[in-house]
């Protein structure tokens, strides 16, 4: 993206695609279950007609969003996500439709945390969360060794303190 600083080149783990798929499948199944229960109660207690229509509407929306976030998004997300860590900066680039690029000086990083939910554990992945004084940035799915290495790298570089903070 730029001439002087190297554009970020590291990709997420390949398993991030199925991991993201599983994650959003679970959340969509839960959502559909909730709409189902609502529908059942509305039938049982014979609520107004418009509540049925509301439920049809949100179900349709959930299905559309399922196609997007289970079928398409994981592939695109993996394809376009890049991160890079060097001794001065953390860089994160993501998105194709809404392209985003972030450049964070190492010295401004306050905390790094490694997290693993049930889905990520299934694939042996970790997510990293990097906090600065102003905001937080995530690298969603990295293999365990890579995650530990990146975390240690950031922790090492972030030790550098600037004068006048």
């Amino acid at each position: 993206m730029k001439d002087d600083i190297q554009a970020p080149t590291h990709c997420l783990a390949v398993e991030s695609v199925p991991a993201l798929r599983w994650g959003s499948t679970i959340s969509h199944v839960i959502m559909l279950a909730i709409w189902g229960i609502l529908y059942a109660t509305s039938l049982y207690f014979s609520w107004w007609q418009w509540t049925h229509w509301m439920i049809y509407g949100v179900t349709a929306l959930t299905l559309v969003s399922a196609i997007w976030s289970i079928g398409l998004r994981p592939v695109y997300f993996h394809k376009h996500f890049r991160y890079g860590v060097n001794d001065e900066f953390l860089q994160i680039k993501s998105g194709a439709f809404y392209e985003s690029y972030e450049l964070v000086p190492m010295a401004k990083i306050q905390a790094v945390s490694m997290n693993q939910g049930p889905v990520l554990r299934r694939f042996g992945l970790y997510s990293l969360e990097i906090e600065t004084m102003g905001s937080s940035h995530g690298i969603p799915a990295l293999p365990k060794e890579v995650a530990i290495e990146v975390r240690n790298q950031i922790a090492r570089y972030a030790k550098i303190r600037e004068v006048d903070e």
Partner: protein
Amino acid sequence: MMKVRRYHPLSILFEFAAFLKSYAILAFVVVVNFGSDSWIARLGRILLLVSVALTIIASILKWFTRKYAVDELAFHLKSGIFEKTERTVYFDKIQNVQRHTSFLHKLFGMTSITFETGTSGMNSNVKFDALTRSEADRLESLVKEFMQLGNPTTDSETEKVAVTSERVVHFTPTRKDTIKASFTSFSFLIILVLGASLFSKVDQLFEVEDYVEGWIASVLTSGWIIAGIVVGLIVLAVTIGVIWTFVKYGNYEIASDEERIYISKGVLDETAFSIGKKRVQAVEITQSFMKRILGLAEVKLISAGNLGDDEDEVSSLYPFLPVKRAYAMIAELLPDYQVVPDTERLPRKSLLARLIKPYWFWLIVTIPLTFFRPEVFKLPIGWAIVSITLLVLLILSRVLGYWNTSYAVKGRFIQLSQGTFEKTTFLTRRDKIIEVSVKRTKLQQWFGLATIGLINRAKPVRHETLPDMPIEEARQFVKWYAERTKNVQLK
């Protein structure tokens, strides 16, 4: 061994005063209904008495348990009635110092002082609600001395001799400034509105109009008397406005020495603010529509520490400075900063991109309008007029927004100006920016544009964005930021 002190005994009184202030409404209601026998009045009385008793006991106990000590490095604070807490706040974390002397403080020759740190959370400051002026001076000078001596590496850019630190007064408003200020703030209009509403209230109560109808009718027939009354009212309103402005912004003083900037204001309620020049995170210049017409501007210093409530916000250099004077003042106070007069405009294609961008708000309003087609102003096509007017207004605001947008990335500074009616210019230094971002929607990608963003330390954290910059410029901006290490000194 440092000396451990108790807070000033009068702090009990001031705590009680603060309590009274917050319970004023309840107290008033209770006192008014003192004779009443209803259960609610009784409950109110009991509640008030209990809370008064509790507050007095709590503040006395608090005074017995709270202690503080100062050495040349930090504040050490002890507090807690049942659960004891010890806090140490190092001077190098202090971002700014605020002093507030209310009328009550003045009666007792006291003041209050707050040292703000940049940390988040409840305990982000060290506050003394009531202390003698000499003690406040002592504490403030300790912090100040620390900044000068204890931090030999504070300055990375300008090498200078930190021997003579003479205090220079840069600005005090003249009578002309105050009068001009009172006109921009429209405060005198408020008086008129207040007067009118008061009259209608009185009218409802006593039917004044009926009472004096004959009199008013006779008055209304005489043009001279009406003119006289109007002039009188205006003179009164303006006088009150000027007095109000004088009370609020009178005694304004902006001063600085080698290391710090001092701003003080107020006649009855005095506030004083001081910040280390190195601690200024950014400068913001705001011009409301009225101020733009009169060529005035408000300059605010952005600090990583809290800046107090909106009402007595103190980080502002005199809010009614002539623009040129304001720019000159920034240069005087912060030699490290400079306002660039020749900023760059966005290219034409940015305007096009901004105009094409979907008008979501308009859509959301228009869809139900076309659906229900309500009559507006008794016109059957009223809904269409409303919709079109809204669209025109939105387009106009986008054009205005484009017109007011300009930027400059020069040397170590970045300057962003934006706004529709009100214009805000944000100026900061490369080494004070925490992080930057470049974002592009699909539309911006087609047009070769990008939205740049930068984050600065402040409370709350400042996110500044400039949409629709050409992509080459955005790349240049990232490169510019990546070169920040040149100005940053590492510990």
